[in-house]
């Protein structure tokens, strides 16, 4: 990095040098600082805007610019912080209020203010209750306010305190959050932010020095800012490129930390219900499998490959619904999961569960198919937070946590013989029957067992697992094995099940609706079911009604604030997609006292099978939602009210199509070989309990997201950078001796290299003496006298070099250069050894 011409410019007094002189209190260093602030700030705001969190989000960039300018102007004045900050907050409040007025839509100021009041009032009602809002206004106002405060603090700290970190760290955190939710598309933004951020740190440091120098009346180079910028920029580029080249560590998150993060995320996800329909431009799974599901309006499902699902029983094929979780409580603006109890299932314990189910089913007339799946995660996705199963899960290859409805958990006093020294397992054995699946032991302060909580399989139709939690998110390229049970039930059986008793808690939980659901929705449900008497007929009527009357459309408006979403879908929008159709069916069935709930996951069909691997490739656009209706004896049966996919998946095919023997669309030749015989009870393949990880699976690898290696373009960029540096060094090296006669060029280079190797010419030493001493140092070198002679005659005799001497020099130079460079390396090694 050679010096710049301006670097040795005359020192001038500190007055601003340009036309900016005419502007009071503004110098170009200040303008440059503000420009860097604006660059860093708008990088963050741009990332947020491009994330597309909200359709109504006002331009954040404008807030960033006005906030920063306000802060810098106030910080530039002599106002005390205690006066300037309230002024800044007042200005920010005015700005946010103005933006809020534009957000609430048309009308006069008074009408808009009233609208703001009404919407915030409704939002607070939801916030202090347990509902889900579909109004984005409070979220937008919150984002605007935080943005203003953040950038104001940023600008103030940069200008007044000469400290950029106070603003850069929160900005970085925002980018990170956006990155986590939006994805790697932010790499460019991050690079810009890093570059501008570190330049800003440089600039604030320089500004602090400039301020001190000015106050002391010290002269400094006029263009010192440019010199700083020039050198820092190149250093930063080199540093950032290096950081991007070095591989990231292949470390996995420690389990306790992962659990803590998941817990925090779960708690954070609960607040999503207050944010309205958030989304991002990143193509992400529409379902987050968290405790809240919001209606998102327009969506773009995308085609990212999420999972590869292989049916490990080669005789099975067909369409499947892979359920991730279910939602119990409808809230007008979205869904929430109900209260749940967690059952820790250790590895291998699924055999016990299956045996209990098996025994229960053996006594009934139910039939079904066991579908063993091998699922590989192809992307880091929220879909890794749950285990997907076809039907009810009955077998796993790992220890995990099974969620069941809290109302399904019963309690019984512990066995009288149970004492504090008994383990939980021993108490379960003493206290519970085989049909009772243990949840936990309640002990008193001295560890005396008091009671045992359990799920009674005799009281429910089936082991009602609403969600299977793998503990920690299943990462990319990891696999798991799961077996689901898909019951075979005919329509007549379902109709006949009305005679059986539905557990009270199921009726209580799954037939209730919030009072906010308009009456016309209930009336419409009554009209649609007409005189259908059985649950099945009512469900089928609603399903048919929705499939025939409501088209599928992924580009729909969001539900207007304050409106019930199902009401809006049924009577206004009249189009939507699976979330809307399935929700409408659940609400309509509940309105006519049919227990129903919303299930979400993936719908996969035969066309999703990869011909090469035979696995179903699950993409984002396989995301799906459907309705589950409870039937006594048979449990939850799926219905699909969305017309974009078949109404009948595995279960319905057996019912509606009457093909009960071919539930998964099997080849007739394979049908007889099905290892399922409902009349003989459950069949669990031996591999169900302990699916071993296959050695060839990439799941053995522990690579995490993002470290997937060196991308070719990056490698090319690095090599290109290195080549550019090499070229620059070579050019600079040759340019430094350009214009000299050849012997002098060689001499100059020799002296330089020898000096770097610690062998400088001594004062008074002649070229011949020097080269002779050098020759003693490098004993392998010969004919060095030629160089000294050629140099002397060229330098002092002004003689042209003879061609033969030139050739000898040319031959000698590469060898000499190598020897001298090895001398430099030896010197460096000696020094480091001495330091050690």
């Amino acid at each position, binding site marked *: *990095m*050679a*010096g*710049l011409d301006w*670097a*040795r*410019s005359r*020192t001038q007094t500190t007055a601003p040098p340009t036309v900016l002189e005419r502007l009071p209190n503004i110098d170009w260093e200040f303008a440059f600082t503000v420009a860097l602030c604006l660059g860093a700030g708008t990088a963050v705001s741009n990332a947020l805007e491009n994330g597309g969190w909200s359709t109504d989000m006002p331009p954040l960039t404008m807030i960033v610019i006005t906030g920063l300018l306000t802060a810098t102007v106030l910080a530039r004045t002599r106002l005390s912080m205690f006066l300037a900050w309230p002024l800044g907050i007042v200005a920010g409040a005015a700005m946010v209020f103005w933006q809020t007025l534009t957000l609430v839509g048309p009308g006069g100021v008074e009408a808009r203010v009233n609208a703001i009041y009404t919407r915030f009032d409704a939002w607070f009602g939801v916030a202090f209750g347990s509902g889900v809002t579909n109004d984005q206004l409070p979220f937008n106002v919150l984002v605007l306010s935080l943005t203003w405060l953040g950038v104001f603090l940023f600008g103030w700290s940069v200008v007044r305190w000469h*400290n950029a*970190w106070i603003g850069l*760290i929160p900005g*970085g955190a925002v980018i*990170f959050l956006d*990155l*986590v939710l939006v994805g790697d598309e932010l790499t460019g933004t*991050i690079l810009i932010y*890093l570059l501008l951020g*570190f330049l800003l*740190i*440089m600039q*604030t*440091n*320089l500004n*602090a*020095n400039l301020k001190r*120098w000015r106050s*002391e*009346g*010290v*002269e*400094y*180079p006029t263009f*010192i800012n440019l*010199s*700083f910028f020039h*050198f*820092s920029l190149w*250093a930063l580029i080199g*540093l*950032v490129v*290096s*950081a*991007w080249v*070095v591989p*990231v*560590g292949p*470390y*996995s*998150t*420690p389990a306790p*930390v992962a659990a803590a*993060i998941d817990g925090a995320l779960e708690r954070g996800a609960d607040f999503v219900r207050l944010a309205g329909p958030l989304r991002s431009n990143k193509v992400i799974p529409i379902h987050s499998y968290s405790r809240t599901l919001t209606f998102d309006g327009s969506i773009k499902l995308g085609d990212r490959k999420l999972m590869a699902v292989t049916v490990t029983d080669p005789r099975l094929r067909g369409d499947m619904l892979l359920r991730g979780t279910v939602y119990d409580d409808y809230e007008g603006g979205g869904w929430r999961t109900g209260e749940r109890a967690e059952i820790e299932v250790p590895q291998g314990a699924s055999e016990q569960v299956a045996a209990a189910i098996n025994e229960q089913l053996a006594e009934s007339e139910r039939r079904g198919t066991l579908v063993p799946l091998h699922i590989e995660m192809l992307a880091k996705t929220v879909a890794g937070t749950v285990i997907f199963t076809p039907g009810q899960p009955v077998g796993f290859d790992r220890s995990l946590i099974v969620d069941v409805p809290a109302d399904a958990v019963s309690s019984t006093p512990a066995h009288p013989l149970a004492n504090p020294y008994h383990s939980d397992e021993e108490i379960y054995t003493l206290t519970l029957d085989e049909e009772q699946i243990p949840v936990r032991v309640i002990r008193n302060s001295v560890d005396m067992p008091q009671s045992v909580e359990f799920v009674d399989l005799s009281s429910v139709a089936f082991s009602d697992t609403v969600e299977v939690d793998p503990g920690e998110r299943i990462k990319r390229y990891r696999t798991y094995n799961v077996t689901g049970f898909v019951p075979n039930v005919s329509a007549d059986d379902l109709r006949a099940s009305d005679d059986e008793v539905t557990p009270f808690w199921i009726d209580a939980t799954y037939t209730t609706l919030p009072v906010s659901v308009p009456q016309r929705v209930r009336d419409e449900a009554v009209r649609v079911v007409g005189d259908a008497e059985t649950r099945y007929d009512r469900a089928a009527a609603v399903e048919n009604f929705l499939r025939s009357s409501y088209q599928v459309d992924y580009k729909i408006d969001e539900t207007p604030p304050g409106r019930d979403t199902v009401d809006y879908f049924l009577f206004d929008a009249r189009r939507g997609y699976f979330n809307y159709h399935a929700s409408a069916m659940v609400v309509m069935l509940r309105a006519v006292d049919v227990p129903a709930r919303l299930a979400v996951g993936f719908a996969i069909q035969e066309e999703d099978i990869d011909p090469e691997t035979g696995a179903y490739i699950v993409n984002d656009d396989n995301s799906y939602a459907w309705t589950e209706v409870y039937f006594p004896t048979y449990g939850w049966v799926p219905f699909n009210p969305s017309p974009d996919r078949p109404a009948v998946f595995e279960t319905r095919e057996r019912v509606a199509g009457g093909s009960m023997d071919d539930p998964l669309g099997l080849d007739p030749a394979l049908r007889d070989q099905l290892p399922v015989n409902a009349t003989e009870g459950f069949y669990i393949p031996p591999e169900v309990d302990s699916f071993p990880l296959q050695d060839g699976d990439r799941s053995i690898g522990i690579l*995490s*997201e*993002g*470290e997937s290696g060196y991308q070719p373009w990056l490698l090319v960029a690095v090599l290109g950078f290195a080549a550019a540096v090499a070229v620059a060094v070579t050019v600079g090296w040759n340019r430094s001796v350009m214009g000299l006669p050849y012997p002098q060029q060689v001499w100059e280079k020799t002296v330089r290299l020898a000096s770097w190797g610690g062998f400088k010419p001594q004062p008074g030493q002649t070229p011949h003496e020097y080269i002779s001493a050098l020759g003693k140092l490098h004993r392998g070198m010969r004919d060095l006298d030629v160089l000294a002679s050629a140099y002397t005659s060229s330098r002092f005799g002004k003689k042209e070099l003879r061609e033969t001497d030139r050739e000898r020099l040319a031959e000698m130079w590469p060898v000499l250069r190598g020897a001298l460079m090895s001398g430099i390396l030896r010197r460096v090694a000696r020094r480091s050894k001495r330091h050690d």
Partner: protein
Amino acid sequence: MRSLGRVLWTVFVRCPVAFAQMATRNQNLFFVIIALIWAAVLAGVTGHWLFYRGAYILGGLIPICYLWARIHAHGLEVEIERATDRLQVGQEFETRLFMKSSSMFTKLWLEIEDQTNMPGSPPKTVITLPAKRARNWKVRMRCGRRGIFDAGPIKVTTGDPFGLFRITRRYGVRSRLLVLPQPQELPYFWAPAAMLPGEGTVRARTHYITPNASGVREYYPGDGYSRIHWKSTARLGRLMVKTFEMDPTSNIWICLDLHRDVQRGQGDESTEEYGVRVVASLANHFLQQNRMCGLFSHGAEPVVLDPSRGGEQLSRVLESLAVAEARGAKPLAELLQEEGRRIGRHTTFIVVTSSMNEEWLLTLGQALHQGARAAVILLDADTFGGKEQELPLDQLGAMGVVTYVVPAQSDLSLMLGPSGIRGDSLLEREPAGAG
């Protein structure tokens, strides 16, 4: 065991203390280290690539900046030339610096400071020094106050552009600089003449050659040949030289009151500084007229300079005034009593004081009774921030003492003239320079 203790002491005490000091001294390095720790922890905890890359950048920034700062500080030669070590107030102190970089990297910023304790901002500049280049810096610093000051060494501070590291090097040695007070011309000053020639002579030997040869003495190496008295040499058989006496004239004694209790004001606007300036101007005034002028005062150190004439006497007076400090414990009355033996009938006696105490008037009166003539320059303490007191003008007038009153922020050349004379003694004034 001892080495283990030293290691533990270093790890648990010295390092944290050093880190805390560094954090308070250099907030950028502190933030970088904190951010690096956070990024490393988060990278390990979350495995997210952003934290890894952030940690790499922050971790790389520290050694790069350290090397950068070292490169800036390394390979710098500084040569210092100072013009003189004696100056007067108002003159400029000039230093020439020649800085040469032997480094192959540009030094982005070098803050160069000539360390001095002279009042005012120390001379400082910031330069950019390209690789293998040299720069000159000529420092001109106006001497604003008398005294002895330090000059040097040259402090060069530099660092990396991000403000993580700062390195200071010092070049040269500390030298002393003497700043003499600046005398002012007193064209209108008048002091009463003492006993004129004929009324009494002053017999005082001098090394000057005058028309008044007073005797002979033995030759000492270094004596000029022109002083040899050949007749005495021939008579005594060894080299003898003549000795001389000054012309008959009256002596002028200046007494500067540096008693700490009577001083008022701060800095340049203090009775101390005004007193020094008055005395310097008076000495200059009389010595320019080739009068015999002496000085006595009792500040931090007692000073008695016997009356003499010429430029060397002026230098002696100014040097003693340059380091004079009003920290004396001896009141003016005592000082006059002690040094009164020096005052004879052929002496003009000038007192410079800000004291309103009437005790010294008695002592002054005794001197006047011995036939000396006196003038008093009163520094008006009221105007220098002292409490209001009545000036003893009447008493001085009654004693026939010419009294000048010098208030703060006044022009000495005017105030030590007719416009500064107070009291009845004005009637006794004689033509200027008649003393």
